[in-house]
């Protein structure tokens, strides 16, 4: 290579390196600038909107022709009477507000005007009236003028009001299978009432938990309305949500359900929809009768019951343990925490290490009872929770701790043979509330609010109650709407001696929740690890607060 070429090479090589560095830097800044640009363009849009609105309030002529015509009309030239009608705008989405103008020419002033708007509404005698076309259609507005000597002239303007683009609402929830079917019926009723169709998407816990915040933090939302049972998560997303203080009557709901989604400034960020409770241990009446078993009235009787059931030959284990990601185990654990430690213990654990540590003796004592039973082998190995219902119904297990939705599960052969008893002597019941939230970035915020109000109201909830496995949160839902077993659960939960406490892991949420589930899975198969588990939970609770 000649020296000239060599220099050329070097120069180009350096250029290449510079290009690379610049594109690297450029990328970095452009990504920062992009964020700023959005701000700027929003400001610009606001500015131009302001300017436009100023312009339209002026009544002066907007075109040269009209100015000319107005000038001419001022002259008293003897011309035949003519009127020119115009309208602004001549098309748009209904309801459409149109400004009409009549320019008379010739004839002998003064003139009288009559506008017929062509939609059956009363006529106007103004020269430049404003008219609102409420429904879609093509209208012919006619202006007729009469001058002082009785001559008349008329003109027409065609105005087209188009139907608004159809709005369809999008709803996300965790409900699939039969729960979803019921919910769709309720949504169908909303569509009948308002004419707004609703599409429902069913999400997994993980997807809703993570996917929605991702979208909202990115400044967009696909859903108009989201139904989620996690108050802590909702409060974290408050900056991206519409507050509901003006949309619902908060006095009509159980106080705890409202307080859970209320922030320090008393702003409520979600409307309560569905109440689920975990009443206790479910059993088959016929199974109990056939084996001479009775419902325990205290904890000692409970332990005896377990031992008795365990002794029955066809039984694998006394208590079924359900699992998917872990929540059936956490529900059972919380029953022990509240049943043996009191409902306040759970509430304190929810508040966090500032008031209650997982390693405190009270907590350990409650857990110790659980591990005693686990070690005795009364609990089955965790398996898919719906499979466990089948096995429970086939009398492989004696009792199964599950939520109020148990009555709707297809694996239950005969609901009339099903019954439950609460954790003996408990003063707290785990409950969760499914809340309705509307993101700020909802595609159709107004309609979203409509749907939110509907779902939070007694009509929607009464429908859902009628379909089974649903407790409404609104006071005005009639008690007679419930099925007998559901009524029994509702009565149990509503007792004055029972406090409804939020589901612990839902309330804390985030990484703690996954850790909690994970640790319980460990505890179930190896109860001797109790101290490790409590230490890990304590560390996780501390980490969650940062």
């Amino acid at each position, binding site marked *: 290579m000649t020296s000239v070429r060599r220099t050329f090479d070097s120069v*180009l*090589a350096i250029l290449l*390196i510079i290009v690379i560095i610049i594109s690297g830097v450029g990328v970095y800044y452009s990504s920062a600038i992009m964020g700023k640009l959005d701000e700027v363009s929003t400001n610009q849009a606001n500015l131009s909107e302001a300017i436009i609105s100023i312009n339209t309030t002026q009544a002066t002529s907007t075109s040269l022709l009209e100015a000319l015509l107005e000038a001419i009309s001022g002259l008293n030239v003897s011309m035949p009477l003519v009127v020119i009608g115009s309208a602004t705008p001549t098309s748009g989405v209904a309801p459409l507000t149109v400004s009409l103008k009549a320019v008379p020419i010739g004839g002998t002033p003064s003139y009288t005007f009559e506008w017929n708007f062509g939609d059956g509404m009363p006529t106007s005698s103004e020269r430049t009236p404003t008219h609102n076309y409420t429904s879609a259609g093509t209208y012919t507005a006619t202006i007729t003028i009469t001058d002082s000597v009785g001559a008349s002239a008329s003109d027409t303007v065609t105005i087209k009001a188009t139907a608004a683009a159809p709005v369809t609402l999008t709803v996300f929830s965790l409900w699939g299978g039969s729960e979803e079917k019921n919910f769709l019926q309720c949504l169908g009723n909303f569509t009948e009432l308002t004419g707004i169709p609703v599409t429902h998407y069913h999400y997994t816990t993980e997807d809703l938990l993570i996917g929605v915040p991702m979208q909202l933090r990115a400044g967009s939302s696909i859903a108009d309305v989201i139904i989620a049972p996690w108050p802590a998560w909702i409060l974290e997303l408050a900056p991206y949500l519409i507050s509901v203080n003006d949309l619902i009557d908060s006095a009509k709901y159980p106080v705890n359900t409202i307080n859970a989604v209320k922030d320090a400034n008393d702003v409520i960020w979600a409307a309560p929809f569905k109440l689920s409770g975990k009443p206790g241990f479910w059993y088959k009446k016929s199974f109990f009768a056939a084996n001479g078993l009775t419902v325990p009235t205290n904890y000692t009787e409970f332990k005896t019951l377990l031992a008795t059931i365990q002794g029955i030959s066809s039984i694998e284990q006394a208590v079924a343990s359900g699992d*998917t990601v872990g929540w059936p185990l956490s529900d059972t654990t919380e029953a022990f925490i509240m049943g043996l430690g009191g409902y306040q213990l759970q509430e304190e654990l929810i508040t966090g290490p500032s008031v209650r540590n997982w390693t405190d003796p009270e907590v350990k004592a409650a857990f110790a009872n659980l591990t005693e039973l686990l070690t005795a082998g009364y609990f089955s190995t965790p398996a*898919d929770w719906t499979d466990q219902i089948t096995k429970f119904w086939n009398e492989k297990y004696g009792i199964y701790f599950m939520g109020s939705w148990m009555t709707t599960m297809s694996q239950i052969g005969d609901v009339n043979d099903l019954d439950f008893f609460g954790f003996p002597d408990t003063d707290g019941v785990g409950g969760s509330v499914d809340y309705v939230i509307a993101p700020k970035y909802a595609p159709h915020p107004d309609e979203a609010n409509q749907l939110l109000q509907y779902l939070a109201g007694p009509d929607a909830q009464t429908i859902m109650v009628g379909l089974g496995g649903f407790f409404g949160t609104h006071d005005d839902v009639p008690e007679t709407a419930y099925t007998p077993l559901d009524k029994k659960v509702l009565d149990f939960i509503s007792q004055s001696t029972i406090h409804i406490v939020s589901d612990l892991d839902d309330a804390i949420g985030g990484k703690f929740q996954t850790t909690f589930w994970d640790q319980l899975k460990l505890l179930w198969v190896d109860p001797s690890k109790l101290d490790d588990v409590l230490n890990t939970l304590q560390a996780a609770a501390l980490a969650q607060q940062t």
Partner: protein
Amino acid sequence: MKVDFSSFAKTLRTRKLTIVVHAIAWGIAFIWIIPFLGVFMSSIRPYEEVQFGWWNFQSFHLTLESFSDVWVGKTSSFPLNSAMMSSLIVTIPSTFIPIGVAALAAYSFARFSFRTKDMLFLIIFLLQAIPQQMVIIPVYTLMNNLSLLNTYMGLILLHTAFGLPWQILFLRNFFSTLPVEVEEAARVDGASYFKIFYKIVLPMSLPALASIVALQFVWVWNDFFFALTMIQTPSMRLATQIIPANVGRLEKNWSLLSAASIIVTIVPVAIYAALQRYYVRGITAGAVKG
């Protein structure tokens, strides 16, 4: 180039050894195939029959219900049909776009010499070892700023960029095995570099390109992590995202899961079957040369 065991000694002992060898080979292979067998079995039988073991043959009913259920998303409301389409939408461009880009770069490395060549090549070589997790956080923010988050285009670009290092390497190695004379002759005739590349080199490189197509297609189709972080709307999800969604779901059903697994896996298997020679060549290209 087989080593014929039986030519070592023609004794009965050797014959027995051959039988033993066959037995071991087929035995191990059979063990490897059992999972596929199990999945296939449970996908064509109703769940009640396989709930306690697909090897039970007391009642045997053939049904394609699981497949249609999963395809349409009847019980699961996570339909596979749209997910498969989404996967195709992402995978096909992610396979063909990088080829052009990588081939250009690889040709440059193979044929030209310039000052910074070695340094740049080293960078490309090292980029191969980067795990997906290393880039995802800034990429997530970047995609968001470019409004490419939750779009197929964003995912395609990401896969393209990520596939470039190994493809450039692979093609560069291949190009250097091509005879230079043909290209130099064309150069003498006055052809531009780009024309030479496009009209001469690329057609000669079809086997290598086939390898890249095979490998990249399977890689992108099977990818989960990038899809998981980039695509959030359920209706836009790729096929690999549907599987975990169904596993963690409320109601578990092995027949459905098996059917879903088979459907999702059929596509890369088909590509592999069609391009098997090139796929294997692609994998072993680095190996034999060392």
